[in-house]
């Protein structure tokens, strides 16, 4: 064994010589002859013994330290769980939450669209119904004049239509069996077959100039009253000038 081999031997397994308690014969023969290696081996053996004693003297982990570490773990976990709700705004943007928000928004938009469409349709119907001319509407200039008759003239065309829906403005008149024989003048062709049902009589106020078939007034601005015979279909069938 050479000096280099002895150093390599200690380098490979430092504590082997101390643990074994005996040394190989080649080593003993060499250190008997080499003083430097003898000193080296003695120093290394003493150092190894000291390291082993130091290793044995290491204190064990105390129970109080275990308790402290466990308490630190519990407080850390509880603090983390306490701070978890503070992160909830971020969780609101999670895919599940965002999809539910999108569904709610879609439902709201669809409801608003349906309401707007319904409202538009109603407005359109109202406009169409107001634009439809009344069957026998008096001139607008005459509409504002009050009459002594119970239901004489409607002020506006749409109000006429509305009142016609609400309650029949006509005064049911028991007509004779053959109304054509009365003083009513036919406005369109109407006989028993074409007008089978009872008809209503409406008293209206008309400018005298508009009445070409009744007794004419001397003044052009005078008004006359006329009874209009209205069929169940709302079409005027006949007219009779009263005054």
């Amino acid at each position: 064994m050479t000096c280099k081999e002895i150093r390599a031997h200690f380098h490979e397994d430092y504590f082997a010589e101390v643990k074994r308690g005996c040394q190989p014969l080649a080593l003993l023969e060499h250190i008997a002859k080499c003083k430097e290696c003898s000193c080296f081996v003695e120093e290394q053996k003493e150092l190894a013994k000291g390291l082993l004693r130091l290793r044995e003297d290491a204190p064990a982990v105390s129970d109080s330290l275990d308790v402290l570490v466990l308490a630190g773990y519990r407080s850390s976990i509880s603090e983390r769980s306490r701070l978890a709700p503070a992160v909830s705004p971020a969780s609101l943007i999670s895919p599940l939450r965002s999809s539910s928000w999108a569904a709610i928004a879609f439902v709201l938009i669809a409801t608003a669209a349906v309401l707007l469409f319904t409202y538009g349709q109603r407005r359109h119907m109202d406009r169409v119904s107001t634009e439809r001319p009344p069957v026998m509407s008096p001139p607008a200039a005459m509409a504002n004049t009050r009459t002594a008759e119970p239901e004489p003239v409607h002020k506006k065309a749409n109000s006429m239509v509305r009142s016609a829906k609400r309650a029949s403005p006509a005064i049911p008149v028991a007509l004779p069996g053959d109304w054509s024989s009365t003083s009513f003048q036919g406005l369109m062709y109407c006989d028993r077959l074409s007008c089978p049902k009872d008809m209503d009589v409406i008293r209206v106020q008309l400018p005298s100039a508009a009445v070409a078939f009744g007794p004419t007034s001397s003044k052009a601005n005078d008004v006359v009253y006329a009874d209009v015979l209205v069929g169940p279909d709302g079409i005027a069938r006949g007219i009779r000038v009263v005054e």
Partner: protein
Amino acid sequence: MTDSIESRSDAELLTLSLAGDEGAFLLLYERLKAPVFRYAFYMTGSQASAEEVMQEVFIALLKNGNRYKPAQGDLPGFVFGIARNLIRRVKRRESVMEMLPGEEALDRKLLDQPGAGDPSARVIRDQSVERVRAAIASLPDHYRQVIVLCDLCELTYAEAAARLQCAVGTIRSRLNRAHAMLAQKMRQTKKPRPQLRASGTEECLI
């Protein structure tokens, strides 16, 4: 259930611990506490400082455990890295290496062994241990690290290389050099102190 937890790796136990599984944390603590504590004890030389480091290590592990990536190394290496940084901080703060450490632990150890030997043998043993301890404490940090890990914490060269994030060859060369430096320091402490000459003292007194 216990068997399934015990068969889990350190990284899995860490994940469970971070999720609030106390059993997993206790198992992980049992696996790591002895080597980490011994490392902290030998590096700081004080049981109180080692316990402080131990506490801080596990608190830091719970705080920064999410940063651990198994691809970068095993969990003990990660924990030893935390411990190494904390030990440096403690040493900067307290300069614990200036004092002779571990006396209270040594006394407790000796008291626990009644009749372990005669008092003179105990004193010789204590002196030997203290000389080794002082010699280790006086080593540069990178040599002290390998001595503590390989000789005192009984890690293999590969494990020590993983803890210190260096090559195995570096560990071997540093350990060889550290042994030579320790032997030299112990040789110096064994040198007899120079004796005062009696005649000179007498002459001065006269």
